[in-house]
Each structure stands twice: as C-alpha cells, then as structure tokens.
C-alpha cells in the first residue's frame, strides 16, 4: 500500500494542474495579505477564497484523476494485492498531494506574513476541506461507470455545498422564523462541511457575531472551544464517511 501511495504522490507532485493551483494560491495569499495591514481582514478574504475554490477544485481534479486512472487501477487490481488497499492508496496519494499544494500555496505565505493561531486554523480547515472533497470524489468514482456523468455529479455536489445548501437554509430560516429553531439550524449546518469550516474560522477570528447567523449561533450555543471541537469532529466525520462507503461499494464493483 505504501508503495502505491508513494508512486501516486510522486506522479501528482509533477502534475501541471497541481503546480498551477499551488502558484495561484500563493499569489492570492501574498497579494491579499500584502494589501492590508489588518491581518484579520486579510485572513477573512483568504478564508472566503478557500471556502469557494478548495472544494470545487479538489472534487473536480480528484474525480477526473480517478476516472483517468481507471486502466491503471485495473492493472493494480490484477496484482496480488487487496482491492481496498489499492483504492485507499490512490486516495491517500491524491489527497496528500492536493493538501500539500494548499499547505505550500496558503500555508507558507501565512507563516511568513501572518503567523498565529488563526492562520494555523485557516490552513487546517483548508486541508480538511481538501480531504473531504477528495473523499467525495472517490465515492463518485465508485458509484458511476461513466466519466462524464461522474464529472457532472462532482459539479452538482460541489455547487450544492457551496451555494444551494445555504440558500435552502435561508428559506428554512425565513419560513420558520416564528419558531425557536436555533438548535435545529446548528444541527442542519453540520451537514455542510463548508459551513462547518466557516464556523471554525469565524470562532477563531472572534468576528463570529459580525459574520451572520451561523457564526453567532455557534458562539451562543457552543462557546468557542466546544464549538471548535464539535466542528472539527464533524469535519473528520465527513472525511471518513464517504471513504467507508466507497470501500464498501468498491468491494463489489465490476471493472
């Protein structure tokens, strides 16, 4: 398993898309942080950029990569090695190279220009989002036989979490505004990893109350530390769940 992880990783760090992704992230973070003397503001902008682009790029790149590797995965499966191991090794190699791209692109400029706990939080939530959406990509890969359909599903899923989910939540809040639904809203938020990541960042930056409904709610109900632990564990849950599901499906998949 380690062997496959190693070679997949070595292949991907020379991948042009990943290199371009790293460079763009680095350029963005340097310009945003250099723009304003207020690091808190700069971090907020970087957070918004990360929350929008990391999920979409991770899931799209990972889905395309998985579907392009299908012949290679077949060759690996014809070797004396367990099915699950091949799949998990592909995931680890892919997720680690995407995470590395994020850590280099965002993390390195942050360490130099704005070291601190909030920066650390931004990097770790970004990495978690990368892991989550690569994991979703793998689930899509094992569920769909056709590459085009798989990419379509990846686009829909990422749009759902970045845009549609919040819209639906707003509709829900407006229509039930006469009832005490605060706890329910916190519960619903846990189903969107992007919202969880946002809450984590906002709690750390101490601008939670300024940044809308979800941040204020978390602050009110969970307090900073409990809220952080809660969101972290749910984010981890979102990494593991698609992974376990895809391993289960893959056991019986025909290639």
């Amino acid at each position, binding site marked *: 398993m380690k062997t496959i992880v190693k070679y997949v990783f070595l292949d991907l760090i020379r991948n042009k898309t990943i290199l371009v992704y790293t460079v763009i992230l680095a350029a963005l973070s340097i310009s945003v942080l250099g723009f304003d003397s207020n690091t808190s503001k700069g971090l907020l902008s970087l957070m918004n950029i990360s929350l929008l682009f990391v999920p979409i790029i991770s899931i799209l790149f990972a889905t395309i990569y998985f579907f392009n590797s299908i012949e*290679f995965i077949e060759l690996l499966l014809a070797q004396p090695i367990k099915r699950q191991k091949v799949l998990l090794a592909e995931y680890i190699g892919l997720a680690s190279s995407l995470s590395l791209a994020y850590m280099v692109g965002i993390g390195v400029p942050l360490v130099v220009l704005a070291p601190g706990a909030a920066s650390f939080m931004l990097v770790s939530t970004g990495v978690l989002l990368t892991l989550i959406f690569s994991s979703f990509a793998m689930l899509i890969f094992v569920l769909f036989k056709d590459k085009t359909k798989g990419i379509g599903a990846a686009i829909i899923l990422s749009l759902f979490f970045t845009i549609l989910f919040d819209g639906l939540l707003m509709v829900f809040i407006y229509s039930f505004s006469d009832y005490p639904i605060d706890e329910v809203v916190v519960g619903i938020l846990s189903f969107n990893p992007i919202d969880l990541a946002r809450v984590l960042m906002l709690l750390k930056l101490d601008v939670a109350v300024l940044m809308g409904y979800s941040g204020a709610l978390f602050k009110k109900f969970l307090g900073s530390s409990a809220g952080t632990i809660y969101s972290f564990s749910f984010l981890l849950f979102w990494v593991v769940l698609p992974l376990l599901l895809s391993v289960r499906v893959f056991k019986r998949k025909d290639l």
Partner: protein
Amino acid sequence: MIKIEHVTKSFGRFKALDDVSLDLEEGRTISLLGPNGSGKTTLIKSVLGLVIPERGTIEVNGQRVKNNWQYRSHIGYMPQIGRYPDNMTIEQVLNMIKEIRREHTKYDNDLVEGFELKKIQHKTMRSLSGGMRQKVSACLAFLFSPDILVLDEPTAGLDPVSSEMLKEKIIHEQDSGKLILITSHVLSDLEGITSHIIYMQEGKPLFYKSTEELQEITGEEKLNRIIAHIIKGQQQALKKGKEHENHR
C-alpha cells in the same frame, strides 16, 4: 490450472457469461475468439477478480478466486489498453510493480532487453506512443515469470518486429509448461502459437478444441479458414432450421 464452473455474469439484462464451464490446463496456449460482446473480456476479468460473477466458481491453482487476492501472484496480466499515470517514468512503473510483488526476487528481463526499454527508461508515460505503452504492459506481464499469463489483445498496437519477439516469448513460455490465455482479433498473429481455441458466442463457449483437432474436422490448414469454415457451417445449419420452420 484454471477451473471455471457454471459461471454466470450479467450486466443488467445482458448476459455476458452464461453458465460457462471450462478447464484450462498448463502447457497450453489457449486463444479466446469470438465476435465483439461475446464475453471474452468478461471471462478474463472474472479470472483476474476484476469482475465478480453472480454464480459459479473459478479456481486458480486450487485457490478460489472469490474474496481472495493471493492467487494473483501466479498470474501475469497484459491489459488491452495500457494507460499509466502521466508523469511516471518507465523505470518507476517497473519498480512500482516490483515493489508490490515483493515475494518475487528473480525477474525475467527478456522482454525488457528485447524491447530495449533500458535506453528510454527515463521517459514519462505521457510521452510514449500507444505501441510503446503496450511494450511496457507486456514486460510487466512477463516480468515475474508467472505460471499463468493472461494477454488481452497483446499484438494490437505492436510493430512487426516487436510482435514477432512477443510471439517467440509466448512459445518459449508455453514450452516450459505455462498456461497462456490470449484474446485477439488478429487471427494471423495467433498462427503457430496457439495450441487450443475457445470460440465464444453470446456468453457461451461454442467449442474448446485443440488446433490439430480443428484442422482435422474442417480439413483446413490456416486459422482464419478454420474459423470461417465453422461459422459458415453454423450459419447454414441455422438457415436450414429456419427454412424448416417456414415450411411447416
């Protein structure tokens, strides 16, 4: 060596394999022939554990294929389409598979040397032509001198010299008592290397006979003539059956 018993596999309504039972023994080079969609690739993939049949059992060297992976150390597989990660070099691909199959320490480098892969081993897989990738796939299949070789359209993209080299290697391996399973559409490429023929049709093996037997039955010498003879005979039989029905 490979024992296939009552294997059935369907994709939706389409039956790719329909109650197939075959006994493939060592020292044979068996060609799997048949029209597109007759279940050749599904059969090969079932043996490799890539496709999981809904009924029936497959045994390789006495080991059940289902929920098992160790048996694959006896198999070398050359896929129809060899696609590899873009930025891996030939050397890396070879090393990777060597590291996965650690239990083998002796390597059969005949093809690696024959195809002169050492000279270009630092080229990335992306920069290789289809035929070059095919050569890498062939080397991987033969590298661990496995007891069983499964070759899916091995000569499809190869130049005549390399194709000839691969054929010689196949004959050599057969003589040392291995089982070789080949699918191919190019019948002339199978001439002289195949000892047995399985002809698949609509998910069922129509016949499984040695080449000598077939030559005797049909009175033909060349492989493509033999196959044509049999198919013609079969079509005529079908026609007659239909005419018979119409008369009634």
